[in-house]
C-alpha cells in the first residue's frame, strides 16, 4: 500500500510512473493507474471535505485532468504520485475558491455524471480513517532508525526514558531529544 501514499517522498513509485508512461498509448494503462491511486485519492479528498459524495466528485475531476495531461508527464521532473496529488490539490483549492467542485475536465472529456451507491459512500467514508492509520504507520517507518526506535519504545510501548536509555546505551536527554524530533517530524508530515 505504500505506493498509495502521496506525501511521502522517500521511494519513487516505479509502477505508477510506468503506468503513466504507458497510458500515453494504452488506455488500459490509465485504467490501471486509476485503480492504483483510487483509494488514496478518495481518502485524501474524504479527509479534506468530510463528505464521500464530494470526495468522489473531486476524485473524478482530478483523474479527468490527469488524463488530459498524461502526455505531459515527465519522469525526470517529478514522481507520479506527486504529479497526481499536485493536480488533486489544484482541483481542491480551485473548488474551494469557486465554492463548487469543478467539472471542466470531465465536460471536455465527455464523462457522464457520476452516480455512486450506498456501498461506495460507506467505503469512501471509511477511507479517511484507513489512510490516516496507513499514513501514520508509513510516516513512522520513514523516520531515521534512532528516532523510530525511540518513539516505538516510548510512545507505543510506554517504557520509561531511563529504561530506554539503558537499552540504547545513551543518556535520557538523548532519548527525549530523539522522541521529540521524531514526533515533530511526524506532525509535519501528517498534519495538513
Amino acid at each position, binding site marked *: 500500500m505504500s505506493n498509495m501514499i502521496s506525501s511521502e*517522498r522517500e521511494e519513487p513509485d516505479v509502477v505508477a510512473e510506468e503506468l503513466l508512461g504507458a497510458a500515453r*498509448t494504452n*488506455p*488500459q494503462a*490509465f*485504467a490501471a493507474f*486509476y*485503480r492504483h491511486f*483510487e483509494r488514496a485519492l*478518495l481518502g485524501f479528498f474524504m479527509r479534506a*471535505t*468530510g*463528505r464521500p*459524495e*464530494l470526495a*468522489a*466528485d473531486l*476524485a*473524478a475531476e482530478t*483523474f*479527468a485532468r490527469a*488524463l*488530459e*495531461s498524461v*502526455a*505531459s*508527464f515527465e519522469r525526470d*521532473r517529478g514522481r507520479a504520485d*506527486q*504529479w497526481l*496529488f*499536485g*493536480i488533486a*490539490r*489544484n482541483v*481542491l*483549492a480551485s473548488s*474551494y475558491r*469557486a*465554492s*463548487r*467542485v*469543478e*467539472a*471542466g475536465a470531465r465536460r*471536455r*472529456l*465527455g*464523462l*457522464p*455524471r*457520476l*452516480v*455512486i*451507491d*450506498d456501498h*461506495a*459512500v460507506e*467505503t469512501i467514508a471509511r477511507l479517511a480513517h484507513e489512510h490516516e492509520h496507513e499514513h501514520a504507520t508509513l510516516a513512522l517507518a520513514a523516520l531515521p532508525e534512532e528516532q523510530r526506535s525511540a518513539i516505538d519504545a516510548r510512545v507505543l510501548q510506554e517504557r520509561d526514558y531511563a529504561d530506554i536509555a539503558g537499552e540504547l546505551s545513551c543518556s535520557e536527554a538523548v532519548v527525549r531529544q530523539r522522541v521529540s524530533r521524531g514526533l515533530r517530524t511526524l506532525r509535519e508530515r501528517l498534519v*495538513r
Partner: protein
Amino acid sequence: MSILPQLERDLLRAADRRLSTGRPARTWRSRRSVALALVLAAVALVGAGGGELLLAPGKTVQPAFVLPANPAVGLGQPRAASLALLPLRPADPAGGPPWGMRVIQTTRGLVCIQAGRVVDGRLGALGIGYAFKGDGRFHPFAPADAISVDACATVDRNDRAFQPGAPTVVTADGLPLAGENLYPYQRVHCDLPDQEDWGVRCPQADLREVAVGLLGPDAASIRVNAPAAKLVVTPYGPDGAYLIVLPAPPHANTGHYGFLGRKAPGTPTLTVTYRNGSTCELPTNEPRQQCSPEGIERSSGPPPSAAQVKSAVHVRYQARMVGATPPLSATGPEEQAIPGVPKSAPGKRAHSPGRGRGRTLHPGKRKPSAGVVVRVPVRPLRHDGQPVPGLLVTFTARVGAPNISSGYDVVLEVHAAHGCAAPSMIVAQPTQSTIAAGQHVRFKIPLESNCRASYLGRVFYASSSGRYSEGMQSDRAGEGPLYEVINAGLLRGRGVSTFGVTVARFHISVP
C-alpha cells in the same frame, strides 16, 4: 474491483477516445506552433533590429485542449476584436516588463480574463525562475489558454460580464495568469499557497500578489489595503477592469500546506466602491460584503413565451442507435427530502455527487449532503460506441439559442415494467451550439435500458445567466452553467414537468 467502477469505465472510454481522436489534433497543433515559432523568430529579428524587444521570443504557451473549429459550437472561438490588450500596465515591483491584461470574448458569449507580462505589446510569461526552465525568453500566451469552462463569465445583454478577482499569490513570470486551460506542467514548478505540490518552495522574491478582474461599469474606485501599500485604483472602461500588482506578503512561499480555504496573513484587501455609494470587499467570507454585479444585467433578456417556442416534435425509437450522446443525468425514482425526516428509507439509495447546485464546498465547514435523494439502479452504462436503444427526437426551433447560456433540452420520465432496472428520469445533454430560429434540432438519447417501457417526454427551452462557473457566490435560481441550471431546475419541486419553456410534450412506448 474499484470503488467507483463507473468512473473507471468512463475514464477508460475517454482515454480510448482521446487516443483515437485526440492525437491528430495535438500533432497538428504542434506543427502549427512550430510554424508560429518560426514566424515569431522572424518577427524577433525585425524587432531586435528596431531595438523594441526586451526578450527573445520562446514557444507559445499552448492550451490543454483544442477549441472547436466551428465558432458556433461549445465554448466558441475568441473574437478578434477582444484580443487587444487593455491599456493597464502596472509595473512589476522588481522592474522588468510591465504587467498587462486582456478581456477575451468568445463567439458563444463567454468572457475570459488573461493577464501576464507584456513584451513588445504582447501578453505572455517570462522564462525566469522555474518557468520554462528559466530559458530567459518571452513566451506569448494563446487566447485559448484562457478559455475554459471553469474560469470564464457569461456576457449580459450589453456584452458585459462580472468577474471579480481577489488578490492571489502568483509567480513573477506571469504564467499562472495565462488561464485555466493549461496543462499542470505548463503552470508553475514551485509551490504556491494552496496550489501546487512540487515539493519546491518558490523563492519569496519570485512571488507577487496580483488582483485582476472585472467589476462592471458602475465600479468607481478600488482601495487597496495591504501592509506594504495603501493606494486607490480607478477601474478601467465600461467593464470596470483592474489589474493590481504588489509584492507578495511575507512568508507567501510557505507552499500548499499554507492557507487552504483561509486568508493568508498579509493578504491585501480590496474595498470596491460603486457609484451608488455601496461598497464590497475582495476577498471576504462575509456574504454581505461580497461584491455583486452593479450595473450588469444578470440575464440576457426575458425568456421567450411558450407560444413563441411551441413546435411540432417528431420522436422515433431506434433499437440500435449509433452516436447517441450520453445523457446529462439518468436517475432513479425520486424521493423529495422532507425536513426533519431522516433519509433512511429502506432499499438501495444512491447519491449523485455532481448534481447541480447541491454540489457545493464551504471552506471550513462540513455539512451533510442535502436536497433530493435519488434511487438509482446500479448497472453498467453503455456508451462505448456500440449501438444502444435510443430515441431520436427532432423539431424545428422557433426561437434561437444564441449563446452558451441558452439551449434546448429533453427530459424523459420513464415508466418501466415492474422489476426492470431502468432509470425513472433521463435528461439529455442540452444543445451545445448556437441555434438560429428555424433551424432543425436533433437529439439522440440513449434509453439506458432494454426494458419495455413508456416514456413521457418534454422538449424545452432553457437559459441561464451569471458567471459561467459561479457557485455559492450567487445561489439564485437560473444562474451558472446552463447544464447545472437545467439539472437544478428539473429536480426542484415540480421542475420535471414545468422547468424551462415547453416546446412540446410527447409519449412513446418502446417494445
